[in-house]
């Protein structure tokens, strides 16, 4: 009986999957994947045998539902054609009608052909609550199209849930932690089912009784759920709708899973089992069950954890090779390094430099994997400058902490919403809630606009300082204000060549400003909802943006439409960052997950879960191997991109972390937060670990509780939340925030 039920649910589930493609960008055909792990360890042969029969029945069902729909809409010719082509017998329709009207309250009969019929009849009963004539064929189509096709008796939901609770409490300790993961998704789905089927009072009672048992980190979600009591409320909430249709992923060891399955299948009421099969994806692994601590570290997101195969794709996290630059012969340049072994004219280098550069880093993407803009002369000059500064860089460490220079924005009245600095720290820009963008010069050199065309015609184009001459002295000022947006500016980013500034705003557009003329050049329209963050790629030309519409878009400055769309998050994307090699984009979202996307083909290659609140800060280490993330829960989590695992957790902040930055050589990680502090952490020690094979294979992490040792210093500001951090090329730390008395 149980096996047949399982097969039937499979059938209905596959049908719903067909009409609403739920497949994620990574997991194709998740329905089948779900079936395989959940049914194969169980009853062995019988689901397999039933599958073809169930499959045929399910196809029949779909066809019949379509036929009925066409018939209802008086599309008789289409009905005929479909019937002919599908080879359906003439009387199938009438029999279907007969079933739905006649059998009425027929219980689940385990009888070959009429399984589908009885299933339908059960559903038509439940959804004929708005007491229409049951000859109406409408319910069949609703069955096919709705995600909640099963419905048990609402009064019994509490009983089922309490029963499960009691069972899990009696289970062995080692299994209890794993099985408790089931509570939250089950609770939410059962509650939503009650609400969707208009059992408002029962839903409220159910919520009252069991919401207190859930984990503390789900409190925010529960609060949102609490306000949702009617079906109409669910309509506008995209996040909840996505939650309903996507599968919550749980990772449970095989032993614990067997226990659960045995318990649920031996009981008469399989409502919970049905819900589990329909809405949960159980990723089974062989091995020791995980402890509560391990589970707590990884859970907290709206979609459960990440499936193991979601994190198995190869990621090229290495850095791109630096291009060859011929250094100008300069007397003061004695220690200037040569790149790529190109021999200097004064001192020809030997082959040792050459061999180092010729070997391709296996983890680095090839230079031509994605098209990148070529290096202009000004870029080469920039790189040379960078190298010169690098030689004068201070080496930081636990005994040599950076000095911190804090830029407080006064009179912002909580209106400062975004800050960015150029890489060479010469310009600072702020985005404000009054929709302006202001640019200041950090150095004593003032900001100037380019002369008008008329004046440019007059200057000597051959002179050495032509770049100075094209600037109009009369427009020199400390700061410039850029007007154009019609909503608060939430994201801001300088281009690496300091020619452009990007700003993203609540009005749904991203604007490209020229820093030569201080005017707006382009408005990129694509998101129709607030854009929460944007960033230029480290090589220029590309930029990424993410917003309320749950997709991140990759743009190029010379295309008015996005080049890539990264879709998969369940809630708003709050933070978007490029990897140092520009081949990957990482997005942090309000659904508490972090996803790494491949720019080449738009696939999601990594999913990181573990934060308990929306993610607001992301930072890649300069060597491209590691990622640090900060969220509203006040924790900084450290991730190894290659293996796709969490490698560290830094506790200490008491409020949302809004900015993270690695120092230039990855020695120090600085974090700034709403609790008005900047904290410095020892990054070399935090990432100094070997990921053994066991951890890599199973994904079981063992986090050390060493936040205290890793904390190198904590610096308070006078009531100014820190929203931006920047290490200069010489490893001086600059911080920015709006003074908030």
């Amino acid at each position: 009986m149980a096996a047949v039920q399982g097969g039937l649910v499979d059938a209905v589930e596959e049908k719903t999957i067909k009409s609403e493609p739920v497949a994620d960008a990574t997991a194709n055909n998740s329905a089948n994947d779900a079936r395989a792990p959940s049914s194969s360890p169980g009853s062995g042969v019988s689901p397999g045998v039933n599958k073809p029969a169930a499959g045929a029945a399910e196809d029949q069902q779909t066809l019949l539902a379509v036929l009925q729909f066409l018939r209802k809409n008086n599309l008789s010719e289409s009905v005929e054609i479909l019937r002919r082509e599908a080879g359906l017998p003439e009387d199938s329709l009438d029999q279907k009608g007969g079933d739905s009207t006649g059998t009425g309250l027929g219980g689940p009969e385990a009888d070959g052909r009429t399984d589908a019929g009885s299933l339908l009849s059960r559903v038509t009963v439940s959804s004929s609550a708005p007491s229409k004539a049951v000859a109406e064929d409408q319910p069949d189509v609703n069955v096919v199209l709705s995600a909640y096709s099963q419905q048990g008796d609402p009064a019994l939901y509490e009983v089922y849930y309490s029963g499960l609770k009691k069972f899990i409490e009696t289970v062995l300790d080692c299994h209890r932690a794993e099985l408790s993961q089931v509570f939250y998704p089950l609770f939410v789905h059962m509650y939503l089912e009650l609400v969707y089927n208009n059992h408002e009072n029962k839903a409220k009672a159910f919520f009252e009784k069991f919401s207190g048992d859930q984990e503390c980190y789900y409190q925010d979600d529960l609060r949102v759920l609490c306000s949702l009591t009617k079906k109409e409320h669910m309509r506008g909430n995209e996040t909840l709708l996505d939650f309903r249709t996507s599968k919550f992923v749980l990772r449970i060891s095989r032993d614990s899973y067997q226990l659960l399955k045995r318990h649920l299948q031996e009981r008469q009421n399989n409502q919970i089992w049905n819900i589990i099969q329909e809405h949960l994806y159980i990723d089974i692994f062989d091995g020791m069950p995980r402890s509560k601590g391990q589970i707590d570290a990884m859970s907290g997101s709206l979609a459960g954890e990440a499936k193991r195969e979601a994190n198995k794709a190869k990621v090229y996290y290495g850095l791109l090779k630096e291009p060859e630059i011929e250094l100008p012969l300069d007397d003061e340049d004695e220690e200037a390094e040569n790149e790529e072994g190109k021999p200097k004219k004064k001192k020809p280098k030997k082959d040792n430099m050459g061999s180092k550069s010729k070997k391709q880093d296996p983890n680095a993407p090839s230079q031509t994997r994605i098209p990148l803009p070529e290096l202009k002369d000004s870029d080469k000059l920039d790189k040379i400058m960078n190298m010169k500064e690098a030689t004068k860089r201070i080496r930081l460490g636990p005994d040599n902490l950076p000095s911190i220079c804090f830029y407080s924005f006064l009179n912002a009245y909580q209106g400062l919403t975004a800050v960015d600095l150029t890489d060479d720290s010469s310009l600072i820009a702020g985005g404000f809630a009054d929709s302006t963008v202001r640019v200041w010069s950090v150095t004593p050199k003032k900001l100037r606009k380019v002369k008008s065309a008329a004046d440019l015609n007059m200057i000597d184009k051959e002179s050495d300082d032509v770049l100075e001459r094209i600037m109009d002295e009369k427009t020199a000022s400390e700061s410039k204000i850029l007007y154009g947006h019609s909503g608060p500016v939430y994201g801001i980013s300088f281009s690496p060549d300091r020619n452009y500034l990007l700003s993203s705003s609540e009005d749904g557009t991203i604007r490209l400003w020229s820093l030569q003329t201080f005017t707006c050049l382009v408005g990129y329209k694509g998101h129709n909802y607030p854009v929460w963050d944007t960033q230029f790629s480290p090589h220029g030309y590309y930029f990424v943006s993410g917003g309320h519409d749950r997709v991140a878009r990759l743009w190029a400055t010379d295309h008015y439409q996005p080049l890539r769309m990264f879709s998969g998050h369940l809630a708003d994307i709050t933070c978007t960052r490029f990897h140092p090699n520009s081949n990957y984009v990482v997005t942090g979202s309000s659904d508490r997950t972090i996803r790494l996307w491949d720019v080449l083909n738009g696939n999601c290659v990594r999913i990181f879960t573990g934060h308990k609140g929306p993610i607001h800060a992301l930072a890649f280490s300069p060597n491209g191997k590691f990622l640090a993330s900060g969220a509203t829960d006040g924790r900084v989590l450290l991730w190894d991109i290659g293996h796709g695992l969490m490698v560290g957790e830094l506790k200490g902040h008491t409020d949302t972390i809004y900015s993270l930055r690695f120092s230039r050589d990855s020695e120090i990680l600085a974090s700034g937060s709403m609790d008005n502090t900047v904290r410095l952490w020892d990054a070399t020690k935090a990432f100094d670990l070997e990921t053994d094979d066991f951890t890599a294979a199973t994904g079981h992490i063992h986090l050390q509780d060493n936040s205290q040792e890793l904390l190198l210093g904590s610096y308070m500001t006078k009531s100014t939340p820190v929203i931006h951090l920047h290490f200069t090329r010489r490893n001086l730390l600059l911080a920015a925030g709006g003074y908030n008395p």
Partner: protein
Amino acid sequence: KRRKVKFPKDHEVMIQILKDMGITEYEPRVVNQMLEFTYRYVTTIIEDAKIYASHAKKSNVDADDVKLAIQCRMDQSFTSPPPRDFLLDVARQKNQMPLPLIKPYSGPRLPPDRYCLTAPNYRLKSVQKKVTPSTNRISVPRLSVGGVSSRPATPTLGAPSVQTVTKVTAPVSLTNQRFTVQIPPASQTSTTKPTTASTPAVSNVLINPSLIGSKNILITTSMVSQGDSLKRKHEDDDDYDNL
């Protein structure tokens, strides 16, 4: 801290709602803003519902009317982002296309002009044939352009005070424009006051549209300037521009 003041009932209800949704710290004016929104929203819905009820020739407004009103308003003002399956579909289509190659040496990489905001959005009306007593005046050429849609990146010419600036509303593609630039004959010297803008005689110059609309705004009128009559203010430019 305990409040001594008693608020009106609506105010208390709103405070309770905020507390239920977990918001504990807020400025006092937030409650007023929320109440204002509530009043406006409810009034709009009820008015719509009244219209629907009268359309259905009902004497009383009932729940169905209100539901219909809410639904219509929701589709209008409170839209939500597209559903996930739609987004996944669109994303899949978009991501299949390979990344376009980047042309080298193409100057500032911007979209085609019609998608940029770099065109002038004003047109200067010409004032014809005003006689000036002295020839030592700044001669400012006027650029008249057909309808354009957006703000200028840099005004290529100063806005003279005598002219009237008409803002053109109809957006027209730039590529088919005929640009007429009226450039007065060479009057060499510059004066300190750039605001006098009369021109003795004007000559029309047609600019090839392919020159304008290029991404490099620096070369627009310089290509057609005749002589150096386009100077404006030059107090301190002499150092730079001495040839």
